[in-house]
C-alpha cells in the first residue's frame, strides 16, 4: 500500500509539474513600462547586424536600451501576435503595408511636430504616409526604387554598350545566354534574373517598372478616397508582351524563373546570370560575390513611355498595443537622424563574416547624401531612379490587389501561347471586384 501511495503521489506531482510548466511557458505581459522598447524589423542575417549597430549607438547616446528582434517573416508574425492583442512597441517594415495595418487598427498615428528633425524629411515623403483617414501613420525611414544591375565585365567582354532601351536590354540578355560572357567555354550563363512566382506578389513587383515604363498602371487614384482600375490598357498589354518575349526567348531569363521567389534567385551572386532589376540594398552582397568592379547599376532602360521605376520604402511604425508615445517618438527621432541614417547605409560584416546589406537605401533625411556616405558613385543612379519612381498606393490595403495582379501575370507568363488580352481583362475585372468589396470603387 505504502508503495502504491508513494507512486500515486509521484504521479500527481508529475502531472501537476507538467501543468505548471505549461502555464509558466505563457509569454510575459508586454505592458511593463520599465522594460526596454520592443522593436522588430523585417530582416534576416546580415541586415540584422546593421540594425544592431544603429540601436547600440542609440543606447550609447541616450542610455536607453532597445529590445531588438530581427524577424524575416515579420507580417506573418505580427498577424499571429495581434491575435493575442499584442504587438511590438515599434516595428520597421515596408511602407506598402501602411494601408493594411491602418485597416486593422494596428497603428498609432504620428504627429511629425513631436519628432525631432521631422523637417529634414521632405514634405512629399511625409505625405506618402497619409492614411485613408488623413492622419499620418509611420515615420519614413528609408526609400528606394528598382534599379537594373548588370555584370559590367560580361557586357564589356562581349563588346556591348550600356542598354538604353528595352530592345537593347533584350539583346544584351540574349548575348549573356549565348555568347559565353564569362569565357569559360561552357553554355552556363543566362540573361535576366526574374523572381516570377506569384507568392508575395513577386512577379508583379519585378514587372511593375516595365508596366510603368510602358505608361500603364494598376489603379488610378481619383483623389476623393476612391480608385478606378487602369490595368486593362494598351500600355499594360505592351509591357506584358515584352515580358512574355523575355520568358519565351531561350536563355534571356533564367530557366524555371516562373516558380522562383527572391530567395531562390541568387544567380547574380553565383555568376550564372548578369541582369537583375532589383533594389539597391543588394549592392553589398553582389559586390562581395563577384567583385565591385564587375557590378554596374544602369539607369532603367527606356520603355515606350520613359524610364519610370517603382518606388518602395520602409517606415517606422508605432504599434497600437502599447502607448509609451514619448519613448517611441524619441527612438524615431534618432532613426531619422543623420547619425542613424549613415550607420544604416554602411556595409558591415556580420558575426559569420558575411557582408551585411544596407538597411537604409535612399536616406529619407535630406541632409544625408547617399553618394557621399558610401563614397560610391553608383548610388547616384539609385537616387535618380527614386526621383522618377511611382509607389503602389500605400494608403489602402493594396495586398489583395497586388496578389490578384501577380496571380494573373504568373499565369500569363507560364506559357508562351497564353492569351495576353484575356489575361489582362480577367485581372482588370478581378481588381474591379476587389475595389467594390473594399468599398472604394470610383
Amino acid at each position, binding site marked *: *500500500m505504502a*508503495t*502504491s501511495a508513494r*507512486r*500515486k503521489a509521484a*504521479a*500527481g506531482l*508529475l*502531472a501537476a509539474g*507538467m*501543468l505548471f510548466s*505549461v502555464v509558466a511557458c505563457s509569454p510575459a505581459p508586454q505592458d511593463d513600462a520599465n522594460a526596454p522598447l520592443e522593436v522588430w524589423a523585417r530582416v534576416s542575417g546580415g541586415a540584422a547586424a546593421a540594425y544592431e549597430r544603429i540601436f547600440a549607438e542609440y543606447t550609447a547616446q541616450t542610455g536607453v536600451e532597445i529590445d531588438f528582434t530581427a524577424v524575416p517573416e515579420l*507580417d*506573418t508574425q505580427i*498577424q499571429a501576435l*495581434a*491575435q*493575442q*492583442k499584442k504587438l511590438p512597441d515599434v516595428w520597421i517594415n515596408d511602407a506598402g503595408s501602411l494601408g*493594411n495595418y491602418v485597416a*486593422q*487598427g*494596428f497603428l498609432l498615428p504620428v504627429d511629425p511636430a513631436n519628432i525631432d528633425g521631422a523637417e529634414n524629411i521632405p514634405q512629399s515623403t511625409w505625405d506618402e504616409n497619409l492614411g485613408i483617414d488623413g492622419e499620418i501613420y509611420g515615420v519614413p525611414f528609408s526609400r528606394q526604387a528598382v534599379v537594373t544591375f548588370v555584370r559590367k565585365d560580361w557586357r564589356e567582354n562581349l563588346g556591348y554598350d550600356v542598354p538604353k532601351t528595352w530592345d537593347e536590354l533584350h539583346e544584351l540578355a540574349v548575348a549573356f545566354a549565348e555568347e559565353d560572357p564569362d569565357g569559360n567555354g561552357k*553554355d*552556363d550563363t*543566362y540573361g535576366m534574373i526574374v523572381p516570377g*512566382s*506569384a*507568392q*508575395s506578389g513577386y512577379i508583379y513587383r519585378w514587372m511593375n517598372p516595365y508596366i510603368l515604363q510602358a505608361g500603364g498602371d494598376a489603379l488610378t487614384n481619383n483623389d476623393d478616397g476612391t480608385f478606378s482600375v487602369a490595368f486593362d490598357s494598351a500600355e499594360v498589354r505592351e509591357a506584358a508582351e515584352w515580358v512574355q518575349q523575355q520568358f519565351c526567348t531561350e536563355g534571356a531569363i*533564367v*530557366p*524555371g*524563373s*516562373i*516558380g522562383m*521567389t527572391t530567395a*531562390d534567385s541568387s544567380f547574380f551572386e553565383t555568376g550564372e546570370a548578369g541582369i537583375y532589376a532589383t533594389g539597391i540594398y543588394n549592392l553589398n552582397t553582389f559586390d562581395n560575390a563577384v567583385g565591385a568592379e564587375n557590378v554596374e547599376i544602369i539607369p532603367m532602360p527606356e520603355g515606350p513611355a520613359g524610364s519610370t521605376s517603382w518606388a518602395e520604402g520602409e517606415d517606422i511604425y508605432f504599434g*497600437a*498595443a502599447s502607448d509609451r508615445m514619448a519613448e517611441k517618438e524619441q527612438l524615431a527621432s534618432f532613426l531619422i537622424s543623420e547619425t542613424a541614417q549613415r550607420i544604416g547605409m554602411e556595409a558591415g560584416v556580420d558575426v559569420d563574416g558575411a557582408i551585411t546589406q544596407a538597411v537604409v537605401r535612399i536616406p529619407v533625411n535630406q541632409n544625408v547624401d547617399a553618394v557621399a556616405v558610401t563614397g560610391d558613385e553608383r548610388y547616384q543612379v539609385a537616387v535618380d531612379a527614386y526621383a522618377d519612381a511611382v509607389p503602389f498606393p500605400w494608403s489602402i490595403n493594396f*495586398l*489583395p490587389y497586388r*496578389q490578384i495582379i501577380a*496571380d494573373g501575370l*504568373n*499565369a500569363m507568363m*507560364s*506559357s508562351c501561347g497564353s492569351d495576353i488580352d484575356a489575361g489582362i481583362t480577367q485581372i482588370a475585372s478581378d481588381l474591379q471586384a476587389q475595389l467594390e468589396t473594399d468599398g472604394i470603387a470610383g
Partner: protein
Amino acid sequence: MTAPSTIDIVTAGGRRGGRRIPASVSFRRQLIPWLFLVPGLVLAIVFKFVPMFDGIRMSFLKVQPFLGDEFVGWDNYATVLGDKRFIESIGNTVTIAVFQTVGAVVVAFLLALLMEGSARWLRWTRTAVFLPVVTALAIIGEVWRILLFPSEAGFANRVIGFFGIPPQDFLSDPNQAIWWVVVVGIWTAAPYNMIILLAGLVGIDRTLYEASAMDGVSTWQRLRHIVIPSMRSSFAVVLTLAAIRALRVFTEVYVLTGGGPAGSTEVWMTRTFSLGFDQYKLGVASAASVILLVVTLVLTIGVQWITRRKGNN
C-alpha cells in the same frame, strides 16, 4: 489500451494474495493510468484542441483584434465556397490526394515486401529508406527543386537527356508541375507507410505460409490470398493516414511551387494560408480550415466503416 494491464502488474505486489480489492484502491487503479496520460493530454489540449476550438470560433468572425471582432455568421463559409480559386484548388487537392495516396501505399507495400526479414543488411537498408521521413520537408523540397532545375544543365534533365528525351520544364510547366509534386509526395510518404505495413507483414501467422507451401501455391497466389487479406487492418491505417496527410498537403507544395505556376498546383491549404497570411482574412482562412476538418473527419469515419464492414464479412 495496454496501460491498465501494465498497472495491474505493477500493483499486483500490493494485493496480498487473493483478497477482495477495496473500492478506494480500485478507484486509484483507475486514476493512475489517467495520470500517466496527463503529459500527453496537456500537450494535446494546449497545442491541438484549444487552437482547434479557437479556429472554429474565428470562422464565424471578421477577425480584427484591435478594432473588435465582428460576428458574421456563415459569411466566411459562403466566401470560401464562393471563391473560384478555392473551388479550383479542390480539383488539385483531390488529384494529389488520390495519386499520392495510391502511389505511396503501392510503393510502400513493395518496399515492405523487399525489406521484410532480420538480416543485418536489411536493417541498414531499412534505415536508409526511412531517411526521407526524418528529413525536414522544407529540405526535401529544396533538394528536389535542385534536381528538377529546368535548364539543360539540371540534374534530371541530364539524366533524361541520356535517353534522348528533350529538356523538360518540370515544376515550371503548368501541365506537369502537379505530377512532380505527387512524385515528391510519394517519395516522402512511402517509407513511413512501409514501416506500418512491415509491422503488418511481420504479424502474419507463419504457419499459413508453410501450409500454403505444402499446397504448392505460387508467389502471386500467396500474396493475393494470404498476405493482402491478413494485412487488411494495416492497409486501413495506412490508407486513412495517407489520405488525411494528402488532403492537407501544404509544405511540399509551398516549397516546391508555392501553388504556381499559373495556380496549377494550388491546393486547399496553400489557398487557406494565402488568405490568412497574405491577405490577413483570418476568419475566412479559419472557415476554410474547418471545412477541411469536417471533410477529413467524414472521410476517416467512412474509411473506418468500410474496412470494419469488410472485416466482419
